[in-house]
């Protein structure tokens, strides 16, 4: 039986959409960038090499918690033993990537982005989606999107750790303090972008004050909510900037670690 825009009683129009603009361009670009990142991140997570060179560590591997981590790369110690699967060492990145991945997967902005570009639900506004049934986020697995706040809290911990990584990068390759390199700036920029992305999050906005009924009775939380609301306006932009930031930071650290380029020191 016909459903959607072809349902009984609705205007009989054969086309799924009458939009004449390039509505397909945005989901196509989103798909291309996100898919490229997924391929790159998967490869890097399994590569298990070239993620650390004093004083820089890739955000894909920080905090490095496995006994297989490169010497000097573990900020919090070696919590996990070396695990071998099919003769391959289990990469330290795989212990931690679920948290930033989960944060982005359940992010209210990224949900819009991938529901449109990957699942075409819908591909664009007023463009009929190809699915015959739709239940949204009411049942498994999509009901797990409600866990966003837990990934947000975990993301804050990661932001602190990556900020510490950036501070530790104010050292030279012999661990002497008081130096700054291009890598220091790269790690600082990455941590900054991630803080903006986290603090502009809708869950953050709700937590600091959004859940209140009476702003007037909680002036400090109202002030915090006002600030986060302003950041929240740019959440989409922060989501993309921080994603590209993580990507480029990892590329930079890898290039330095493979000695393809040298980490130039300002002082």
């Amino acid at each position: 039986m016909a459903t959607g825009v072809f349902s009984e009683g609705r205007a009989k129009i054969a086309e799924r959409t009458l939009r004449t603009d390039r509505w397909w361009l945005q989901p196509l670009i989103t798909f291309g960038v996100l898919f490229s990142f997924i391929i790159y991140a998967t490869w890097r997570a399994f590569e298990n090499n070239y993620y650390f060179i004093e004083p820089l560590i890739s955000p894909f591997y920080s905090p490095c918690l496995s006994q297989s981590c490169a010497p000097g790369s573990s900020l919090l110690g070696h919590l996990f033993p070396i695990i071998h699967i099919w003769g391959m060492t289990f990469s330290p990145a795989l212990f931690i990537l679920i948290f930033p991945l989960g944060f982005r997967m359940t992010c209210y902005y990224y949900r819009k982005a991938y529901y449109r570009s990957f699942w075409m639900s819908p591909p664009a506004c007023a463009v009929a989606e190809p699915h015959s049934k739709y239940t949204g986020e009411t049942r498994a697995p999509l009901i797990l999107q409600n866990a966003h706040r837990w990934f947000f809290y975990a993301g804050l911990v990661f932001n602190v750790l990556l900020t510490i990584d950036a501070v530790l990068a104010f050292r030279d390759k012999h661990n002497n303090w008081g130096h700054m390199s291009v890598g220091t700036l790269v790690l600082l920029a990455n941590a900054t972008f991630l803080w903006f992305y986290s603090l502009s999050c809708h869950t953050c906005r709700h937590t600091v004050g959004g859940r209140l009924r009476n702003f007037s009775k909680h002036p400090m939380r109202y002030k915090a909510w006002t600030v986060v609301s302003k950041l929240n306006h740019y959440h989409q932009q922060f989501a993309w900037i921080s994603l590209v930031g993580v990507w480029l930071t990892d590329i930079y650290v890898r290039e330095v670690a493979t000695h393809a380029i040298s980490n130039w020191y300002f002082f």
Partner: protein
Amino acid sequence: MARTLKLRIWRGDDTNGALQDVTVDANPGEVVLDIIHRVQATQMGDLAVRWNCKAGKCGSCSMEINGRPRLACMTQVSAYGEDETITITPLRAFPVIKDLVTDVSFNYKKAMEIPSVEMPADLKPGEARMQQVDVERSQEFRKCIECFLCQDTCHVIRDHEENKKSFAGPRFFIRIAELDMHPLDMLRNRKKQAQEEHGLGMCNITKCCTEVCPEHIRITDNAIIPMKERVVDTKYDPIRWLGSKILKREDLIQN
């Protein structure tokens, strides 16, 4: 200088219909509703179109122009190219009555399902007081002109007729959010109602409602997502639930 405009206007009723080609003059500064009226006056005397204020405030002239839900009175003809054919159809999420007029009674039925504000019983007329900061938040939602463009573009019902039973739609999520954020509202089960009776969980926040809103209400960011987070507080947050039991504070998970 007047230009000649090529139009395709959908004409028909709930049993049949088709796009009909029309050529009509357009003057500078005119909007699509002006053009429809000219067509009505000169070529199609029985063309059905719903309109009222012609100022973007009554929400009557909602239709789809080149496939996009819009108010005809707020859509400038000059936005379209000289050689472009403008296609005008009725809203495609609702049953058509005739030509460009659709039956939007679905929305009124949904509106009746939402309980209105419940003020404290001991509050006498004239005694209600609210601070400006508390008013401002829901004031945005009061801008809604009930044009139902957000309802029309929402794929949950646009693409799935069967969901109309269990999904209220973005217009009514802003209504629920407005009431749930009301400092004096005593009804405490709005979050539960939003999730279980009005289908808030079906929204996958693809933001089309926000994109088409002629009043620029940030429906998704300021109403739907905050309501989703409030639902998480009450239904999907085990720590808040535990806190409510240990601290004996039911308000932490108020339904």
